């Protein structure tokens, strides 16, 4: 079995097809404190991955019943149980963020970076940063757009922070919950090769939202073209991370169900981006540079637009 697993993992770097040949590597669930021995061996023999904390034999690899002191075995009412979700170092968080911004085709984000150590630090603080970034950028952008008008009085629009917080946290936690439930249900009907735990899905969603932080800052630029280009670009990047993560999980299902699932994931992601853009950022009425798209509402001609 060990030889078989070694063979499998020697080809780990190849195309995504070979991910399917690797049966048990991501069958991880918080509720199961016992991992199969295959999983344990496979992680110890993996050559040169970025997240070589497992090779250093940190507590992350203690998942079989051969070793005492299993991770995540503390009862859920103790503080230690929740500490296991924050067992990440700075470089790991930075690696995961990098992986979500530069998706490598064929590489699965969960498999590559999360590697059965899902953390809640990333999702929580990326969402918090995104909430405040969107609120602040929206406020700034509205300020610059309405700057010259005599009737404009600046307001900090603090209400919008709570709305942004509700929306983004709901998206980052309820959608993974729904998706996880749906995948579990399909798993009971169709034997899927790849399945994810709830925390891994939350992790993927959380880290995939990171690209929206610089996007939101760049949305301050009051140009329709720039904003739409940014939307499409960030949607492609984070959408591809999500697609490459979830396609192996639904691939073996009914064709239509699989496509519908992935389509819904992308649709919700796009709705979030466009909804934020529409609600927090007023439409720019003037094109301050040479207009590529003529502004329909541009009634005021200023000397700035040449």
């Amino acid at each position, binding site marked *: 079995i060990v030889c078989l697993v070694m063979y499998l993992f020697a080809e780990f770097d190849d195309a995504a097809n070979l991910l399917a040949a690797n049966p048990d590597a991501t069958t991880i669930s918080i509720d199961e404190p016992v991992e199969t021995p295959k999983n344990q061996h496979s992680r110890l023999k993996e050559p040169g991955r970025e997240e070589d904390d497992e090779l250093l034999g940190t507590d992350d690899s203690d998942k079989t019943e051969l070793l005492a002191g299993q991770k995540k075995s503390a009862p859920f009412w103790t503080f230690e149980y929740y500490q296991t979700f924050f067992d990440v170092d700075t470089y790991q968080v930075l690696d995961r963020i990098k992986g979500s911004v530069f998706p490598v085709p064929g590489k699965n984000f969960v498999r590559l970076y999360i590697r059965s150590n899902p953390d809640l630090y990333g999702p929580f603080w990326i969402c918090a940063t995104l909430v*405040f970034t969107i609120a602040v950028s929206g406020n700034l952008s509205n300020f610059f757009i309405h700057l010259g008008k005599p009737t404009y009085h600046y307001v*900090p629009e603090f209400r919008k922070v709570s709305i942004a917080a509700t929306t983004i946290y709901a998206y980052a936690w309820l959608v993974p919950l729904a998706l996880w439930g749906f995948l579990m249900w399909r798993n009971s009907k169709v034997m899927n090769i790849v399945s994810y735990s709830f925390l891994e899905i939350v992790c993927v969603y959380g880290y995939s939202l990171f690209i929206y932080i610089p996007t939101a800052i760049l949305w301050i630029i009051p140009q329709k073209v720039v904003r739409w280009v940014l939307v499409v670009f960030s949607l492609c990047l984070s959408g591809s991370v999500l697609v490459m993560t979830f396609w192996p999980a639904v691939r073996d299902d009914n064709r239509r169900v699989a496509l519908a699932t992935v389509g819904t994931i992308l649709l919700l992601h796009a709705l979030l981006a466009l909804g934020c853009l529409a609600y927090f950022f007023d439409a720019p009425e003037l094109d301050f540079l040479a207009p590529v798209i003529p502004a329909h509402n541009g009634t005021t001609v200023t000397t700035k637009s040449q």
Partner: protein
Amino acid sequence: FPGLADVSISQDIPVEGEITVPVGSHSPDEDYSTLDEPVRDTIMRDLKAVGKKFVHVMYPRKSSTLLRDWDLWGPLVLCVSLALMLQGGSADSKDDGGPQFAEVFVIIWFGAVVITLNSKLLGGTISFFQSLCVLGYCVLPLTVAMLVCRLVLLAGAGTISFIIRLIVVMAMFGWSTLASTAFLADSQPPNRKALVVYPIFLFYFVISWMILTFTPQ
């Protein structure tokens, strides 16, 4: 016991001593003796402790006074005064105005609790209330900035006043973040320091943003 048969206490070696243990001034249980002191002494002692902590925040050194004797009086006073100064802000209070009193309060306290939980979950060794105490006291520079902003706004609300306010708020924001980091950084595991410092940065950034965007009616 055969070996002890010939051991005896001779009559001319007196055994003496005192049974009572003197209550020295270094005894930690001062509570027993503070019950009878005048109220003024009690209040002054607490005020002096709070004042000393304020001084420590303004000139941050790696001293452990803030950490050892935590108290939440200072943070409460700072939070209430900051929230009060942020009132009377722009526009109608019903929508799209500045933060309400309760919102400022909740942001500061809830934010401090979340940051403390975050640092404890990441493996920090600081206690819950010590961390709250440090984060609360380090709001002092920003409260000073708010005071300065209000005074500057009394003089006018033009571009120059905005630039002055921007510089003051940015400087105080840096001061707050550096002060709290100086106190808190040592209790964190070394390879996770950045993970702990970043939420503190975000916290003070949000407070600074609220201060900077304050526009009087």
